[in-house]
């Protein structure tokens, strides 16, 4: 089937089988490898992206279900030369080790901070509990999100 996907502000026309997941299509048709797939059952949160501003696990969504939605992946969050404050904060606090989970965490963090721009550390830890970091960088992930929150508040 033919499909038009709006990803990171651009439309992409894709020819795909109807049973393919959104994560698969983003990774393998559009080369967006920042969409990390680990558990493929919605548990680890590595493949988290935004669909119309809401965080979704793209491994559980069919590509066809994303038609007409504005999709945002980590590739659309910031660029190497112009990082998003969340990305910069993850570097500053080293909120990662292997970083396989990092794009997913940052996408969850973005959605969380849009809803809750001035969170407590505890609220942040709970909000970040939909994603798994096996390396155990959690305290530094929470610090990174808190730092990004402050930065984003200042930018407003």
């Amino acid at each position, binding site marked *: 089937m033919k499909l038009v996907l709006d990803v990171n502000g651009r439309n992409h026309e894709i020819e795909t089988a109807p049973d393919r997941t959104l994560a698969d299509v983003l990774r393998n048709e559009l080369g967006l490898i920042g969409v990390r797939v680990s558990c493929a059952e919605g548990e680890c949160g590595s493949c988290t992206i935004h669909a119309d501003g809401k965080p979704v696990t793209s491994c559980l969504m069919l590509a066809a279900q994303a038609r007409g939605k504005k999709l945002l992946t980590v590739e659309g969050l910031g660029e*190497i030369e112009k990082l998003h404050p969340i990305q910069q904060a993850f570097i500053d606090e080293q909120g990662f080790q292997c970083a*396989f989970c990092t794009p997913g965490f940052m996408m969850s963090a973005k959605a969380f901070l849009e809803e809750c721009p001035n969170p407590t550390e505890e609220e942040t830890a709970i909000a970040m509990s939909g994603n798994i970091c096996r390396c*155990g960088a959690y305290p530094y992930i929470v610090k990174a999100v808190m730092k990004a929150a402050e930065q984003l508040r200042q930018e407003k």
Partner: protein
Amino acid sequence: MGVMERKFSVVGKGVPVKDAKEKVTGSMKYAVDFTVQGMVHGKILRSPHPHARIREIDTSKAEALPGVYAVLTHKDVPQNDWEAAWFNRRGKVLDGVVRFVGDDVAAVAAKTEEIAERALSLIKIDYEILPHVFDMEEAMKPEAPQIRVEGNRRDPYVVAWGDTSEGKDQADVVAECDVLYESQQYAPLGRNACIAEWNGGKVTVWTSSQTPSELRDGIHEALDIPLSKIRVMAMPCGSSFGQWWSVNFMLITVCLARKAGRPVKIELDNEECMVTVKRRHIERTRGRMGCTKGGELTFAEFDHIIDNGGYGFKDDVGFFCVDMWGKARHGSYVVHGVNTNLLTAGCMRGVGDCTLGASVERVADMLAEKVGLDPVEFRLKNQIRAGDELRMQHSRSTMKQTMEEYAASIPDELKESWPKLFHLSSGDTHELLRQGSAKFDWKNRFKGWGKPHTIKGSLRRAVGVGTGAHVCGVEFEGATSAIVRINPDGSVKVHCSVGRQGQGSETTQSQVAAEALGVSFDMVEIETGDTDSCPWSHGSLASNTMYRVGWATRAAAMDARRQLLEVACREFFDSCEPSELDIEEGVIFRKGISRSNVRPTISQVLNTFRSDTLGQTSSITGRPAVPMPPATTFARHFAAHFAEVEVDIESGEIKIIDYLATQDSGTVVNPQVLKNQAIGGAICGAGFAIYEHLVFDPETGAIKNGNLLDYKLLRAADFPSKAEVLFVESYDPVGPFGARGAGEAPIAAAVSAISQAVYNAIGVRVDIPMTPERVIRALNHF
């Protein structure tokens, strides 16, 4: 050991890791993200039986399926054993016998993964079912089904000193334990893939691995082709903890690509990562220790069994406790490695430390309670100090060379520059316990053994302390080297074989090279995974990376620096001695002369060299000029962790409320990296302590919770965000700029600290994993 006065310019700085921007933009490539032009896809057929022999295998229908390029069975594979690092696997790539449910049977290469999967279902196999054994103690019996040609049992690994019967006579109190540890899964986030491409009899392999050199060795052993025809390009891993060393699926990819005549990629899905690769051993400790009324250990006697599963071949897991508690006057530690028809077991972070080590800490705690000593005091009294003799110094029958033979073969003049062998060179738990207990306010928060400091309804809060130690690399499988090249423009490239599983080695090795050379961090780039350019090393295992590879990187950089300064002397400094020169920020100058105009850059020196018609080279290549002293005989790294937990005696739930991780890894090369190692270790240990365990089907031995939905891992809200880290930096005489290993002591300390805190909260000891059910059961039994 005192802390040496020192001033470093790059070492000790928390510079962001080299790949930080790739990591946060999602552009970092793991093996799953890698493709090769013209590649096809491979899938592996898995055994449905715990133990069986293939009588007949019919692949004709699979081969006939359109889109299939090759079907690989044991008949296509050279029948040579290959060995993963440190006895984590020994066996053939495929040999027509399956030894656990999920074991590799055959493989297909096809145009797409879907076709490959369909082809797998068309392979017909007639199995002869063989008797199986899952219980490791059953497997030890002579009448048990034998899983390997070598038999199920490895020779016992024994460390003994003195006479334990004398130690028992001297003991006023004795405590003992019998603990069974279930198996922790690496539970990797991220998957792994392997891509193999043959060209003119040579093979190139791209995969995520912590041990590039050992993988090349494994391919060499399995296929019996020259090392020069094998190029491993190890890529970054997702979380690994020892899972991604050399794995049989990588060897299958290599064989399948050869048969298919085109590049093949095999990507493991998450369940395959969890049920077909390896896991932590199931382990059982029976043991006892005794001490005097004053709390001085008189003996330690432990018998420990580890289950290797189908292909593991390990016999030892004693790095931590044997030496840590080696002050006991008499000791005997015996470890038995045994094979079963369960998934292969291998070294997972802190191997033995979180099990045998946790048992020893538990018995030590019981003794401390009996003699009325605080756990910090008991550890201060009985744990090893820098300078003390180490207990692990006996022969190893499985090694080519024993430790004694190794040490005896070293020339005296070299040995004189080394630390005293079989003695702890630097660092211990004492300063960690002293500074840690002060920072944690231990004296006020510990209310006595088995006593919570707060009771609120069904909630009990208490604190606990635990300690851990591990080696800093081992040398038995080979000598570690590195190459440091200075380019004509003054930039530097390090080539050293290590893993990139998130522990920041690409960054910390670069810091070491920059410090040694006197150039800025940004001038150093590094290659860690290409075996064509990186000399052999164990890679990143056994907390080896900073100590042994770091030693090699520094030695190579110093060798490059010596060559550079020799040219500089000749060309710019009137043939002075190289020792009169120094380098800072890439500029060479004469020491002690403040206002000299002669300040050539590295690039100026090398360009002079370059235009010299008699010059042999345009760039400088440094390598270690002498062998590294044997780290196993003197180097350890240490951790002491302090935890506060809250236990709900109605639900059995355990919450970790507060945490302090202290660590002595010698000089801290990068505090950002090391604090993540310490806390990451704590969280992995906490998971093992309170949740994580694999569930095996009693009928088939198959893993029932081999996915992230059913295998529970800690989340951000399950560990205190305010957790703190404290470093003690006792300078190491051998490690690069005084640094030692780092990654494994923290997990051991965490398991013991949390276990003890739970005991103090509820007054009952709970076996690991301390799940709510087990907590309730332990409370009911009490």
